[in-house]
């Protein structure tokens, strides 16, 4: 522990030295710029900014919305401009005149949303509350299972009274944006964490550090500590500024912080040039942000939204309760990825690996070898396949997003091929790398390893399904999944066959890895295709 603190202190003084050249005035100036930008962009940047030109004439509510540019005209001129396609809509007092083309109709719809709000403000301020908003709806919730006798003690939610025209739609946009405020500083801070590693790599101090009597684990943890403390401090600050529950915010965002740091720990391990770092960081930021934001947008309408911890934050800001299972569902995988990254880091943090300039694919292969070589292949291969399941899952979600842009006919095929490809890579790469280094040689051993890899993968796959389904929804689906126990043997055999094809083709027939993978992927794809056909 002492060692870790020493490293942490060293890191703090490094940062101080780095930024000591810049005067405090510059820092204040930059911070002011940041605050000012946040303030300026808060309201003005909106979907559709500057798209519509509106002509107005007579008594019309003031239109202050970045989507509309206003021209004040008289009645005849307004109609001429509208006909000449110079403006999209013309508002003449209470009358709205428009053309019949798309652009004008879009403008009308956008205006409708805006003017409705303005009218409510006008009515609310000029009439008594009861007259202006004459409808109250008391919402009660009924337990669907009450009659069947289960869950009779389930607490009914208290009645919620709403006024329809003042109730925003349940889409959680605003809360997701607020939750995103927590993520941005964490990402920013972790970029500094990354550059700290790079800095020490360039001036070779890392080499000296590695020869000191401390473990790589202590180095990583020590370097991470100041940044992690800083990240948690910003979390507390944002919770205070947005009137959130501080302890709850910490509990929600601590695993997320670990997750982001874990990913940024990998960036300096793989970079070769500065440009590499920039691009890899960008990729990582994009992927993590979309992984966090995308599910949270569906808070309340789809239970799988709980994959993202931002969903919990959205719930927190809506004052809706959630249980410890909902908390663990996003948090555990993130903590697991952190643990995995720390383990991988301890293996990769050696001079030979860090300083080598090789193609990225070669570096990844080396990294995998370093992770696996320290224990028995019979143990490390299945564990590798099992641990990679969350990553495979994340990649497949990304493919889903890509594929949604394709024509419907191609969508299914593309997804099937891409996911088969990813699965084959994960299952075979460990064995191939071990064979390349001569750890396994005989065909028999390779086939046994292929079986173990398939087994690990299948266990991981089913565990993920079981966990996600049993936490998120009721157990009916999960029991259906496992009811036919014998059917597990068929996918196991299938997975084993594909992996065996890839590994044997690569290591024994000496085909290039890409060719071997293509063969395995194709067989896998046709198997899946056949299964889908069988279901119809």
């Amino acid at each position: 522990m002492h060692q870790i603190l020493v490293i942490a202190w060293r890191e703090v003084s490094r940062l101080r030295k780095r930024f000591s050249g810049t005067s405090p005035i510059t820092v204040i100036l930059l911070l002011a710029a940041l605050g000012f930008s946040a303030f300026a962009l808060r309201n003005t940047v909106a979907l559709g900014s500057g798209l519509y030109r509106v002509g107005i004439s007579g008594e019309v509510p003031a239109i202050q919305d970045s989507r509309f540019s206003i021209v004040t005209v008289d009645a005849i001129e307004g109609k001429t401009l509208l006909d000449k396609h110079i403006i999209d809509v013309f508002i003449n007092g209470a009358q709205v005149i428009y053309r019949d083309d798309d652009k004008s109709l879009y403008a009308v719809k956008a205006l409708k949303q805006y003017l409705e709000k303005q009218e409510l403000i006008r009515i609310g301020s000029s009439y008594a509350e009861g007259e202006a908003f004459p409808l109250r709806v008391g919402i009660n919730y009924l337990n669907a299972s009450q009659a069947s006798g289960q869950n009779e003690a389930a607490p009914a939610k208290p009645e919620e009274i709403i006024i329809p025209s003042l109730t925003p739609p349940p889409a959680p946009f605003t809360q997701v944006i607020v939750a995103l405020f927590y993520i941005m500083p964490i990402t920013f801070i972790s970029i500094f964490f990354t550059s700290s590693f790079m800095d020490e790599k360039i001036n070779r101090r890392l080499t000296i550090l590695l020869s000191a009597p401390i473990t790589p684990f202590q180095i990583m943890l020590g370097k991470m500590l100041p940044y992690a403390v800083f990240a948690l401090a910003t979390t507390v600050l944002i919770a205070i500024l947005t009137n959130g529950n501080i302890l709850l915010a910490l509990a929600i965002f601590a695993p997320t912080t670990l997750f982001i740091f874990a990913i940024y720990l990998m960036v300096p391990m793989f970079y070769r040039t500065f440009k590499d770092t920039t691009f890899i960081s960008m990729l990582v930021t994009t992927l993590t942000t979309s992984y966090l934001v995308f599910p949270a947008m569906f808070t309340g309408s789809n239970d799988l939204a709980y994959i993202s911890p931002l969903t919990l934050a959205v719930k927190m800001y809506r004052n809706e309760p959630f249980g410890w299972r909902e908390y663990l569902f996003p948090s555990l995988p993130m903590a697991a990825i952190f643990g995995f990254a720390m383990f991988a880091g301890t293996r990769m943090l050696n001079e030979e690996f860090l300083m080598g300039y090789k193609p990225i694919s070669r570096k990844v292969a080396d990294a995998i070898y370093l992770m696996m070589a320290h224990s028995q292949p019979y143990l490390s291969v299945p564990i590798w396949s099992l641990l990679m399941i969350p990553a495979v899952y994340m990649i497949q979600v990304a493919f889903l997003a890509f594929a949604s842009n394709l024509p419907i006919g191609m969508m299914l095929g593309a997804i099937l091929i891409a996911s088969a490809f990813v699965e084959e890579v994960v299952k075979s790469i460990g064995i191939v790398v071990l064979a390349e280094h001569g750890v396994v040689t005989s065909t028999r051993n390779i086939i046994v390893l292929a079986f173990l890899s398939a087994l690990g993968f299948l266990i991981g796959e089913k565990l993920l399904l079981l966990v996600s389904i049993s936490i998120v929804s009721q157990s009916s689906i999960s029991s259906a999944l496992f009811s036919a126990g014998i059917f597990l043997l068929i996918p196991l055999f299938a997975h084993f066959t594909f992996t065996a094809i890839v590994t044997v083709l690569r290591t024994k027939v000496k085909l290039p890895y890409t060719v071997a993978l293509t063969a395995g992927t194709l067989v896998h794809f046709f198997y899946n295709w056949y299964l889908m056909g069988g279901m119809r």
Partner: protein
Amino acid sequence: MIPFLAVVKKELSSVLRDRTIIISILIQLFIASFSSALLLGMLSLYDADTIMKYGGASIKIGMVGASDNPLESFMTKRGIQITPFATLTDAETEFYQGKLNAIILIPPNIFNTAEIKLYLPNSDAISSLIRMVIQEPLKQYENYLRAQNGIEVRYTDLKGKPTTSFEFVYSVLLPMLMFFPAFVAGSMTVDSITEEVENNTLQTLLSAPLTINGTISAKITAAVILSIIQCIAWMVLLWLNRIAIQNPVWILLLAVIVAGITSTSAALGAALLRDRERSQFVYSLILLTAIAISTLLDLSPIETVSRLAIGDYYTSGWNVAVFAVFLAGLYLLLLKISRRLVV
């Protein structure tokens, strides 16, 4: 001129060799498809019209109370199936048998303020779906009650076309695809200059027959060339997706100018700070501030691209020229400052 081209070539080939540019293109493709997938998802989950189109016909609501209530006709017009009941108990029985999705209770003798009750299933997903679908009929009912009180609400009969995808394509997707390469170009310039400084290779480079200004300009040129290739590719892709874009030449020119602006200001930052860590940080801050200021001054390149693309009457090449003037000023400033890199 030859050494200048040699540096441009070296920069471009290093990017191609490292395959890093592929990552950048992947990111853009990913953002574009993810945001449109997000939008489609949101549309189908949060848009009452879309819900009604795909599953709304199966929503059954029981209504307890006065049978001639206008709310009932508003609901039916929306396409929701309404079943009248005499008492709440009757309706609840049907609800528990799974024949109803929700119940509305309208108490008799409503005067000026009405309070109705809504009974929803205790499941987030289904209840929010129902709430979205009945939002519009409830608002219409509210306006009806207001009219009873003698309050007239204007602009209630406007229709139009759903705007989300139009606004998304022209104000988010197109500007994102045109300016993300520019953002990357700036980052690349910072990397490429600070790497030479931190690895002490700049001095060697300068022993070639090339000035410091020539070197930096070559690096900026390489970054801008890369970004323009990406922009052209995105334009073609959008065109293949049948997204109509007016003024494509002006838009491309604006994208080049903006890439020039970001790379030049990135080079300025690198010349002043000389290390990657601080330069990248300051570069992203400057970028953010620049976006904020341009938005406030009503001179935002994002808005200019959107307006050029939809063929806005008031937007033309002159709006692009403004940015060119700004770029020229920045570049002159860089020529003055770049000497600091050598000493």
